[in-house]
């Protein structure tokens, strides 16, 4: 998944391949058999329409119409073949190539979509809306997991992502309402995130308190604090305190007219653009700059870094603060983009999902980005499908993102390796 040359996660992957780990082929085989039974044999006998563009768009693409059983059988055959190939590879002592898993995943999703949409009352889905909605839902997750990457790569466990997001959202709502400017709200969100970060940094770096404890407790603290202020101050006078303006959507001319990817990439509020920038900057920063090398050194082997003159604790302090800025901006998404008012506990566990995305993405910004997108996609799929009316009970669709993650983490990703010094306070001496 990652292209970084020297990070440890790769080492464990290759090692896993070298000793013939049968985990991946077995997982693929189980999924392939499932696909064969459900998507192919159990396929609904009708056509499925995937709409690619809105009729009002500048460029209108014709919809894709497939016959569900055909799609199911093709998908199942490809998946069985992929699983067989994985067995052959492992038998020969070679690791299962990443592209094989990627192909498998894409085919699985396509077959699943044609099966589930085909079984719905209206077998017709707007693919462009599904994808755009996924990205939108993933924005706060991506910011949150980037915050985690920054902290944990420098050796500070960040469970407080939830608190950072929530306080960012709260600060954005209050500052935005008081000033009447969404941009002031955005700034305040970053400041709010940093405040939570500072508490995390002071307690874990200066007072050497266990970082997991600080993180969990900070989440409770922020939830209580914002909840208390919400029920006393904000709801008493919502006009003054809790009616922030929305961030305007900026669409880039021409580029936003490209079908499917146009609205995703080039028709966003500023927070959306900042997200892409943040992923790129943090990835390049971590793996191609002096700062990134030092950050990773501090997270892997602080003593060595210290010996070479890197100020370990100052580096950690800076990174944790920066993580607060990133997560705070993600929090602003809740109150300045998606809804324009703050609600009690409105982040609803997204910070924990971001934490999962971070681990799923193996402490790599790009990995975390895709993991968060997966969550966004699964969540949005559930909304869309419950709207279409499928035979599968809604609750099971709602479980989907979480079950997919369990499968992915247990079967495909496996042992994820945190930075070596993650969670270990550094005491010079």
């Amino acid at each position, binding site marked *: 998944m990652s292209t970084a040359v020297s990070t440890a996660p790769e080492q464990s992957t290759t090692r896993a391949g070298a000793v013939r780990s049968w985990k991946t082929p077995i997982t693929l085989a189980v999924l392939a058999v499932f696909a064969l039974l459900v998507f192919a044999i159990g396929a609904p006998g009708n056509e499925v329409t995937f709409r690619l563009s809105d009729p009002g768009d500048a460029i209108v693409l014709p919809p894709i119409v497939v016959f569900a059983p055909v799609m199911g059988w093709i998908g199942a055959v490809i998946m069985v073949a992929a699983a067989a190939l994985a067995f052959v590879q492992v038998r020969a002592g070679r690791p299962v190539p990443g592209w094989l898993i990627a192909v498998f995943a894409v085919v699985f999703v396509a077959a699943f979509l044609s099966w589930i949409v085909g079984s719905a009352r209206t077998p017709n889905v707007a693919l462009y809306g599904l994808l755009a909605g996924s990205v939108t839902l993933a924005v706060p997750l991506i910011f949150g997991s980037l915050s985690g990457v920054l902290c944990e790569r420098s050796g500070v466990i960040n469970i407080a992502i939830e608190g950072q997001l929530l306080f960012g959202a709260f600060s954005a709502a209050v500052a935005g309402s008081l000033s009447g400017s969404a941009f002031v709200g955005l700034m305040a969100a970053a400041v709010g995130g940093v405040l939570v970060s500072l508490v995390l940094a002071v307690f874990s770096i200066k007072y050497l308190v266990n970082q997991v404890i600080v993180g969990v407790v900070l989440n409770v*603290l922020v939830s209580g604090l914002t909840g208390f202020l919400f029920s006393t101050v904000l709801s008493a006078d919502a006009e003054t305190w809790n009616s922030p303006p929305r961030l305007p959507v900026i669409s880039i001319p021409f580029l936003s007219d490209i079908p499917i990817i146009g609205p995703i990439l080039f028709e966003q509020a500023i927070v959306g653009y900042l997200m892409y920038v943040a992923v790129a900057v943090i990835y390049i920063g971590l793996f191609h700059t002096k700062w990134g090398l030092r950050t990773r050194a501090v997270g892997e082997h602080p003593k060595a870094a210290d010996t070479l003159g890197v100020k370990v604790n100052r580096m950690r302090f800076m990174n944790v603060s920066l993580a607060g800025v990133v997560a705070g901006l993600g929090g602003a998404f809740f109150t300045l983009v998606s809804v324009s008012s703050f609600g009690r506990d409105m982040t609803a566990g997204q910070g924990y999902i971001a934490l999962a995305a971070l681990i799923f993405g193996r402490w790599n910004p790009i990995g975390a980005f895709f993991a968060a997108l997966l969550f966004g996609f699964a969540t949005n799929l559930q909304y869309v499908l419950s709207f279409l009316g499928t035979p599968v009970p809604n609750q099971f669709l709602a479980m989907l993102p979480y079950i997919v993650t369990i499968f992915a983490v247990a079967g495909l990703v496996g042992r994820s390796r945190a930075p070596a010094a993650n969670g270990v306070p550094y005491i010079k001496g």
Partner: protein
Amino acid sequence: MSEDEHKHARKKTDEHASEVRLEAMVDTEDGRIAPPPVPATAQSGDLHPEASSQTVGQRIMSGDALVAVLAVVLSLIAGGILIALTDEDVAQTATYFFARPQDMLLAAWSAASEAYLALFQGSVFDYEGETFSRMISPLMQTLTVATPLICAGLGVALAFRAGLFNIGAQGQIIIGATLAAWVGFGLHLPVGIHLLLVIVAGIIGGAIWGGLVGLLKAKTGAHEVILTIMLNYVAIYLVTYLLTTPAFQRPGSSNPISPLLDETAMYPPLFGDAFRLHWGFIVALLATVFVWWLLKRSIIGFELRAVGANPVAARTAGISVTKGYVVVMLIAGALAGLAGVAQVAGTEQVLSSGVAASFGFDAITVALLGRSTPWGTFFAGLLFGAFRAGGVTMQISTGTSIDIVLVVQSLIVLFIAAPPLVRALFHLPEPGKTKGPRSPKGTRSRKPATTGGPA
């Protein structure tokens, strides 16, 4: 040497890839034993010989007890300031603060003190009660609320001790409660056997949900934090789905709520029908004793603590780390399942999707405050139960939002975890060089300064 041997060695490293990290950490820490994947274990006092050799009396007399008391005081003051800041009377009197400052100070004092008095009145002793049972009924309510907190807190604490961060108590409570409730209203059995089966079902339900995490972690190396978070969500959706099926939904009701459990399936009240307190509290007490015994006296407990303190050393000593993970998560889940039983067979008497409230998450804070020791968790559970029970009364009688309880609770945990901060705030002297089991890192750091050499 030979290729075979080489391969074997590599296989070994792979099997315990997560432990490679620990080996690296041992290097990092200059040969000292570093904390396990979840360093929370390092915080539990028992891991340090000087702490366990202390008598109870010595512990109370030591500075740590003082720090704990001061931490509670500090948190209450901070909460009081927050209450006063948002009070309307205070805001009004603040407009003429410079003319008559005492007005605002008085208003602030009365706002905070009234809220706290109501909190006390709602959680410990109602001095305005007409009869004796009215007077002590808040205490009974506290114990009732504390019951699931203690059980689930013990589960989280036990996992901590084995180096696992169990965020999944919520899901384990839900599944335990679901199974227990199903036995409770689905089967009709004689008195005694029925309740016993309900308890067993709850334990099994929680143990399945917890054991699944341990198994997946042991077999595939998946991170337990992800697994527990995901299983929490799966559990909540599973119970919402079940409550729409005829097997679980109350006949004739369109709400997602189960029938009442049979009379025979419920915990009998502990002190008569006047109070909600039920025998579940005694079960929680027994569970605490069991966990204490498990950790202190049993071989399994010793192995678990060894795995938690240093998996590499534990493996070298012939303890199976993977088995340890499965066993500890089974027991942790079972304890959380007991919390689910306390809910459906005691307090709530029905199964609904909100059966676990937020006990699973509060349990984490309870375990942290209790420093992952059984009795610490027990008393932390009582304290949080009191806050919860009193918070409701406070919100009703003074209008202070119950959220303030969360703020005070979390501040207490934060301050207790950072004794140096509390000491600095109150200008207390630093403890002597032989002291300080509660700040292991701080004291340990000073000792190796001579061996570590300049960096």
